[in-house]
């Protein structure tokens, strides 16, 4: 009887270990609008899933992503080990949304206002996910722009205070104005990885770090 009980508990212990190991970490891809979050999400999904469907449409117009989108069970292989993550592509976080910005992109006023409203809802949703639903954060920054903004500092501050593992990606290194050092200087307390999600430059280092931080 005692043997049976012992056996049963050891099986259930093994099973729980197994399941907890397999439980994928949910990684939120955060950052300001137009940093390349969706481009990165799409690249990760295309690199590591068989069908490689896009997570969402990419666009040079800000706030293309206005709802958080999730792709589950992406298995990333590094050094013979497999790390399973769920990727959540989130709307760009900002403190101001103004429809007039979209009018410059040949958009009708009505569409621009709707886009603006949806973008605002998207930011609320992204902040909600950050509070409730992510186990780690990939913070994407456009390395051609000044990283030292209130939005970035505030979000990184929230992430730090929650003790979430965070990886900072300096995106768009294929562009001439890119400065990775500027981003390193802004957030010296975190690992910063340069990349071009669009061109696929330096993705190996990105995946190495994803496996290390979120594995």
């Amino acid at each position: 009887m005692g043997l049976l009980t012992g056996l049963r508990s050891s099986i259930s212990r093994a099973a729980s270990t197994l399941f907890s190991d397999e439980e994928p970490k949910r990684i939120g891809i955060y950052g300001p609008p137009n940093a390349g979050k969706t481009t990165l999400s799409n690249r990760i999904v295309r690199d590591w899933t068989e069908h490689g469907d896009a997570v969402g449409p990419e666009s040079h117009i800000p706030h293309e992503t206005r709802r958080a989108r999730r792709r589950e069970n992406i298995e990333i292989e590094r050094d013979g080990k497999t790390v399973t993550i769920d990727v959540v592509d989130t709307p760009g976080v900002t403190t101001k949304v103004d429809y007039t910005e979209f009018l410059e992109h040949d958009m009708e006023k009505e569409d621009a206002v709707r886009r603006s409203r949806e973008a605002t809802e998207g930011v609320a949703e992204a902040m909600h996910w950050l509070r409730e639903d992510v186990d780690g954060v990939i913070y994407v920054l456009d390395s051609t722009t000044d990283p030292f903004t209130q939005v970035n500092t505030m979000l990184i501050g929230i992430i730090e205070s929650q003790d979430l593992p965070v990886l900072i990606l300096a995106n768009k290194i294929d562009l001439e104005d890119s400065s990775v050092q500027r981003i390193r200087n802004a957030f010296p307390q975190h690992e910063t990885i340069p990349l071009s999600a669009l061109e696929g430059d330096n993705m190996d280092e990105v995946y190495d770090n994803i496996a290390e931080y979120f594995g």
Partner: protein
Amino acid sequence: MPHQCTDCGQGFDDGSKEMLSGCPNCGGTKFQYKPAGASTVDTPAEPPEPPEPAVDSTVARTVGNAATAVRDLVSPSSTSASTEEDVPTSGSPTPAEDHAQASARSEVVSPDELPPAPDRFRSAPQMDDSAETTHSPLESKEEQDEATDISRNPSVSPPDSTASDEVASSADSEDDQPSRPGLSELRKELNDQFESIRVVEPGQYELNLMELYDREEYIIALQEDGKYTIQVPERWND
């Protein structure tokens, strides 16, 4: 009855607790905001809810400090205003910041519209009450200009008692010293802050990220006509 259930038409007062768990009549979670004008100003709001435990206060403090640091760095001219901010607050500075700012923003309202008794500010639970009341005229004013602070509408419990006390002290001290130097700077600074989402005009929004992050409920749909939908958490501050 500025809040109305869009399903059954049931009305709710500002600060009403019932609507926070959905419409008691039909279970609907979609409400329409109808500013009631000056009449709501004199009507005290519903009994306020007990203060929420300060779960995220350290978060808010860390981030708030960081944000202040950035603000100072970005615009050196605002340094004096930031110093001013610290004057009225006594305890932990930042979680109160937004609320103090929100409260100070209501100072735009003419002083005789403010609740006369300073006692109203003393106890924590009444803070929400007073903030709600003093805010109402601003809201209706903003409404006329097609500007609404929608986050006020699904009114929720005050974040913590520390914040409340600080709001109280800031409100008091400003009442006492209306001509304090730098106050206009401070007010300008404070006016830049607000709760959650501010509709400047349809299609133009200003967002307070800390408030959005700190809130347990979240706004899932905005509409230009003043309607909004919130997600009601399953357990509300048990």
